[in-house]
């Protein structure tokens, strides 16, 4: 029953993950698991000092936990399900005795919870490192999704010859775009390490480390469903042995906060003495409902959390926040709010149509680790797609309609003349112009050749030019965050209009090619004897559009 619930929940989590792509319908909250996580919402709102309506869902889980107990950990949490399913596979033969330091280890999760919240109070987000839903989503995105697609393609390559011979062309021509991400390996190792901890104790992560479990355990003792052991209990220890959380104590007692209502003990009890009655009662004797964190430990945790949260900000990365070459997703909040609100779940990167969204490494310090950025040399931001905001559970990337998203200017393309094939080598290249959705690249005749220029007011930083620039190595046209529009609230369209930006495609722009006699090359002066002398050979081409002969 419980395994079925876990399997369904994990399947649903995986399905929603798969559905998080640019075709996601507006009504489907693909990020629902992340929204349900009260810790993520709480931390994002506290750290970012913003109100995020979407995370109100987290209240539902808190209320449910108050009413029923920590059923989330045993029945719903997808990470718990992964750990439970892998446990018999990996550690069946392992004899695990209760760790000597069990009691102290249990406190770690409370320390971590307090650290996260205290750091959030100090204005830094740390919760992303440890929150189970964020961690699992991130692992899915960065570490599991790419090899999965790779394996599917490999299998397709295997059947391709057969399919082609049988003329199953839909199969023979099928191949999925391979997603790629930075930090895949590191993310995987963290996940693998967390599973490996199960070697020491079942659900090691849940018992000792999970800050979400810690948060839920603070309210779960208020729940109605509580484990009760009959008075005839002979203290045989079978339930203690069986309990994956170590919640059963000697003499039939229960650590209520630790109990996740998995009811493994019910099945384990040889005397059938264990029940989970629904009537609310006083806590029986022998139960402990509170984490036995000492007052000193509590205060230390708060102090360290605030300290860490504060210290993280005292680095050159803070004043440099808007001076880095980082291109953030369209609709990303202003940088400082963005960094504190983003929970690094990687859902935006997973759903990104072009794979341009990549995890940030150390470009903006610890505060920016794993936040999404655009790698425009790798891929551009597709103008007809707005999925990254749609799936962002904390709205660090605002959910925008396509019109708004188009106006959420990411930056401005900057042409590096010394690298541009046309400027530096007089080659016939127009790719940036060809691919630009907004005609933000125009050609003017300079030195007898038509040369590209960027019209900044028409460039919204989508990056097609940077991606497609055929120069080897770095692109000769690079989107810099110049002029990026980052709004906490309000309309990007209105803001763009205010700034006199126009991202409407402008037909007929190339008319200047013929009508612009006045834009023809200036008569060269002293330069003409220099390296430009060669290009003088082709001035006749200037009166015809490129590609035509006189």
């Amino acid at each position: 029953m419980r395994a079925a619930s876990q399997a369904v929940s994990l399947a649903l989590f995986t399905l929603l993950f798969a559905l998080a792509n640019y075709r996601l319908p507006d009504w489907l909250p693909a990020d629902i698991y992340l929204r349900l996580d009260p810790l993520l919402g709480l931390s994002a709102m506290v750290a970012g000092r913003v109100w995020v309506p979407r995370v109100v869902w987290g209240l539902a889980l808190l209320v449910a936990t108050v009413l029923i107990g920590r059923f989330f950990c045993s029945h719903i949490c997808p990470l718990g399900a992964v750990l439970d399913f892998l446990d018999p596979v990996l550690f069946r033969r392992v004899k695990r005795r209760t760790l000597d330091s069990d009691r102290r280890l249990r406190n770690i999760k409370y320390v971590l919870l307090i650290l996260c919240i205290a750091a959030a109070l100090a204005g830094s987000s740390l919760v992303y490192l440890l929150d189970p839903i964020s961690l699992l989503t991130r692992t899915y995105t960065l570490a599991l999704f790419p090899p999965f697609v790779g394996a599917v393609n490999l299998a397709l390559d295997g059947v391709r010859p057969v399919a082609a011979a049988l003329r199953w062309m839909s199969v023979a021509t099928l191949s999925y775009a391979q997603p790629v991400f930075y930090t895949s390996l590191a993310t995987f190792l963290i996940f693998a390490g967390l599973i490996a901890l199960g070697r020491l104790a079942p659900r090691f992560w849940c018992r000792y480390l999970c800050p979400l479990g810690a948060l839920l355990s603070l309210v779960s003792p208020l729940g109605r469903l509580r484990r009760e052991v009959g008075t005839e209990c002979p203290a045989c220890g079978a339930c203690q042995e069986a309990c994956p959380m170590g919640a059963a104590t000697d003499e039939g007692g229960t650590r209520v906060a630790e109990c996740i209502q998995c009811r493994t003990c019910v099945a384990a009890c040889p005397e059938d003495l264990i029940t989970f009655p629904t009537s609310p009662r006083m806590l029986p004797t022998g139960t402990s409902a509170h984490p036995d964190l000492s007052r000193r430990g509590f205060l230390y945790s708060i102090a360290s959390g605030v300290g860490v949260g504060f210290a993280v900000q005292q680095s050159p990365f803070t004043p440099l926040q808007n001076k880095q070459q980082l291109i953030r997703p369209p609709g990303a909040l202003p940088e400082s709010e963005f960094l504190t609100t983003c929970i690094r779940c990687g859902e935006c990167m997973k759903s990104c149509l072009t794979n341009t969204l990549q995890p940030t490494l150390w470009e903006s310090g610890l505060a920016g680790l794993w936040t999404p950025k655009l790698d425009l040399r790798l891929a551009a931001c597709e103008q007809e797609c707005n999925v990254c905001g749609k799936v962002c559970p904390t709205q660090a990337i605002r959910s925008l309609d396509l019109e708004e998203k188009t106006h959420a200017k990411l930056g401005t393309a900057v042409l590096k003349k010394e690298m541009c094939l046309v400027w530096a080598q007089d080659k016939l290249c127009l790719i940036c112009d060809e691919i630009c959705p907004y005609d933000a690249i125009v050609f003017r005749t300079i030195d007898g050749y038509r040369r590209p220029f960027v019209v900044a007011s028409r460039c919204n930083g989508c990056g097609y030019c940077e991606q497609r620039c055929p120069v080897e190595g770095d692109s000769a046209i690079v989107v810099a965050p110049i002029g990026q529009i980052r709004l906490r609230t309000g309309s990007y369209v209105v803001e763009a209009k205010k700034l006199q930006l126009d991202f409407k495609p402008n037909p007929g722009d190339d008319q200047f090619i013929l009508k612009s006699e006045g834009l023809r090359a200036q008569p060269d002066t002293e330069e003409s004897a220099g390296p430009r002398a060669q290009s003088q050979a082709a001035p006749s081409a200037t009166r015809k559009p490129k590609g035509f002969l006189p």
Partner: protein
Amino acid sequence: MPKAREGVSRRDFLKTASTGLAVGLAGRSRGASAAPSHDLVVISGDPAAAAHRAVDALGGMSRFVQKGDRVVLKPNMSFASGPDRASNTHPAVVHAVARMCLEAGAEQVMVVDNPLQSAELCLRRAGVAEACKGLKNTYVQMFTDQKFYREVKIPKGKVLDRVEVLKEALDSQVLICLPQAKSHSNTGISMGIKGLMGLIWDRWSFHSKYNINEALADLATVLRPKLTILDATRALTTGGPGGPGEVVKPNLVIAGTDPVAVDAFGVGVAPWYGQQFKGRQVEHLLAASQRGLGKIDVDGLNILKATA
């Protein structure tokens, strides 16, 4: 009275057989030799009807497609925009031609391109996939992985000596180009010959490494469409190849077996960047004709002009 015999009389048999033989022979001779009466056909009308009429006027699709052939259609569909923008071939033209190929007995029709924008979006916005949905054995597919391409030598190449070409295009029996008539800020116009770039893997080197006009002519020496049907129902006269730009409506479909002649005629049907040009003035067409790939001067050609 003897009962009427069941089955086929000798006379009937002979009649049927000879008719069949005659049809077969006629069909063959038409396909094999017998220069078609028209070098080019220029049909005005709505996209589907004009495409139909154009192919009929050239002798019907069976002249190009034999029973059991695998056909590759190469329209322009590498921009995520609809027919109004005139950067992609009209879906109705693609559909009409695909259907004619099937009717002529094609075993498979593969509609292909190597897109400039997200393949998924191009497939959806260009409307070709939608239009061809109901057709049997017809696949509309973007090939965005190198494994679908194979290197071939270009023995007559001036600037290109090898190029990676879509395997499907190499292995199929028939290649039909269905270009959209549009301006191109680098090659002047983009029609059939320029459209061949959608069949190769590394299209970027044409811009960065080679003289694109010469490279296109080189490419055209190895990719020889049996038929080119130019969609000039709309023409993007500025802002090409992707648009947006000025769209005029010549309402023409131009078809022929000579890829240079089709393009050369297409150059004349609309003003490009506000000026009238002749085929000879388009550098890559001139280069292609100099390679012996077709006639660039269309004035002397036998051209059928009709209305669909």
